[in-house]
């Protein structure tokens, strides 16, 4: 008769105790997995939404007159294009998705337009991520809605700006903003058109999503920029950045408040069940001691059962939690409907952590079991 054999037979005999224990682990794991799965999805969705909102950091020449900058929407000064090479090669910066930009207001076909030259995005070493924005090829242009309507431009149209010929790649849909009068082209083309070779007047960027609400991101970001590019300064689009951080923090807060309560409650639940189990089995423990079972084997009987409860509860909890996240997640985290998917790496973690958790919860009851005096329990009628 092996210990494992004894454990399984006891489980079958005292089904209710086992099922209640299993239920405790299952609920804890299911809640954790459902919150985590939906929370992860929420985080991914937040990132995507923020990406869609655009860059929230703008690096411009330090000498920029901010009054003029806000009136025009861009800096009247330029800086060397090499600045982005220098900055993008830094490993420990909190910036990402760096885009070298050159903007200017020009008169084209009797219409005032904003010409914006963009280079493909760059990421610091080791933090490569998919680009947030579309890439513009040299010789092509994206035309704002208002311009396309007024000048009857569409995909495939050829335009000439100050002697530079570009093919319209896309006529953009209405944005309701300044983008409707913007012509976007590759940075090289814009530099040719504006006769500003090797110059840019802005680096667009996004912060690293690594700041807590208590941090002052702008101070950190400016310090980092000063250390590398003292001739430039950073502007943060605060409402956008704060919305982003707050959304992320919301999910963390749910975890921080609810999960400890769930874990403590389930731990206590399992502990109480284990104590009840030990009390029920006093005489059985007594006879085993009388038959020569030592403390180690008695402990194994209880901890082994706890580990089995942990393993089964973790497996069932993972699948139920994932199903909950898939079914109810979109209702709780409104923006995550499409982003929720099973996080299988957490199945492995659940199978490791839950048995340890149940074993720890059952440890004191197991110790109580081995301290029972068999001479007393065997005497009881």
């Amino acid at each position, binding site marked *: 008769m092996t210990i494992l054999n004894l454990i399984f037979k006891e489980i079958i005999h005292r089904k209710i105790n086992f099922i209640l224990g299993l239920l405790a682990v299952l609920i804890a794991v299911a809640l954790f997995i459902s919150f985590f799965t939906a929370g992860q999805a929420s985080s991914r969705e937040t990132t995507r939404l923020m990406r869609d909102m655009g860059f929230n950091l703008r690096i411009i020449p330090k000498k920029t007159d901010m009054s003029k900058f806000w009136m025009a929407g861009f800096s009247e000064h330029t800086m060397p294009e090499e600045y982005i090479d220098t900055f993008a090669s830094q490993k420990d910066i909190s910036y990402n998705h760096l885009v070298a930009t050159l903007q200017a207001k020009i008169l084209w076909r009797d219409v005032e337009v904003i010409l914006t030259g963009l280079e493909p995005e760059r990421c610091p070493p080791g933090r490569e991520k998919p680009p947030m924005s579309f890439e513009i090829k040299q010789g092509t242009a994206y035309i704002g809605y208002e311009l396309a309507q007024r000048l009857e431009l569409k995909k495939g149209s050829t335009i000439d700006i100050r002697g530079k010929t570009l093919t319209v790649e896309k006529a953009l849909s209405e944005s309701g903003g300044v983008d409707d009068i913007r012509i976007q082209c590759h940075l090289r083309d814009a530099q040719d058109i504006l006769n500003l070779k090797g110059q840019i007047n802005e680096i667009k960027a996004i912060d690293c999503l690594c700041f807590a609400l208590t941090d002052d991101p702008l101070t950190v970001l400016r310090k980092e920029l000063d250390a590398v590019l003292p001739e430039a300064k950073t502007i943060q689009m605060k409402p956008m950045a704060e919305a982003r951080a707050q959304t992320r923090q919301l999910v963390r807060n749910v975890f921080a408040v609810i999960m400890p309560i769930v874990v403590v409650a389930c731990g206590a639940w399992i502990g109480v069940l284990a104590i009840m189990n030990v009390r029920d089995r006093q005489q059985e423990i007594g006879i085993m001691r009388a038959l020569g079972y030592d403390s180690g084997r008695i402990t194994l009987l209880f901890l082994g059962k706890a580990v089995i409860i942990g393993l089964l509860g973790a497996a069932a909890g993972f699948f139920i939690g994932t199903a909950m996240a898939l079914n109810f997640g979109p209702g709780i985290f409104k923006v995550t409907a499409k982003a929720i998917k099973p996080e299988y790496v957490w199945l492995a973690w659940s199978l490791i952590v839950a048995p340890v958790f149940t074993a720890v919860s059952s440890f004191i009851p197991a110790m109580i079991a081995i301290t029972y005096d068999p001479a007393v329990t*065997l005497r009881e009628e």
Partner: protein
Amino acid sequence: MVVLENVVKTYRRRRGDVKALSDINLQIEKGEFVVVCGPSGSGKTTLLMTIAAMLQPTSGSVCVEQNDLYTMSIRDRAKFRAENIGFVFQMFHLVPYLNIIENVVLACRCVSPLSAVADGKGGQQAGGVASRDSGAVKANELLKQLGLAKRAFHRPSELSAGEKQRAAIARALFNRPKIILADEPTGNLDPDNAASVIGYLSEFHHSGGTVILATHGTEAEQFADRIIHLHNGSIDNSG
């Protein structure tokens, strides 16, 4: 074989100390059938548990087979108990979720594979050398001898009191112990079953085993080599 010298056992209780055994000096020879008599609370069970290496006396020494039990480590004491002592209790104490044969084999788990060989009893010494399969064979034989062959795969809850006690005797005999300690083994049985249980213990005694039986009845006295009367934790007289 069993020697108790100046054994005192005092239980510490909130309302004051209770002296369960008071200066017990006792020697029980190998192969003796000893009945310990006395009213409830006289210290019979305490005496048995002390001899069983399960209850450390407050003072004094207990030697079984020349082993001073309470100078041994807890682990060694458990091993000694598994190899040398069988138990029969008034309440049977069968494990409820195991069938009868599993209850009998339960004792097998605890005896070291070498012990029986080492003491020269070879393969006949059940638990010691029994593999799991031979353990089951031996348990079946025992159950057959005790008239429980048809009950081997029944749960304790499906057995009568007499059958349960016979199953408990089979478990006690499984490791071929040197001593059987029986605490009121007939207390829950009708006269026929009581006689049958005492008969099995007597058989063990005749095969060379030592029996120490605690009871407040008189049904075992005719089989006893010696009767010890306990009163308030002290031996009144013996022999």
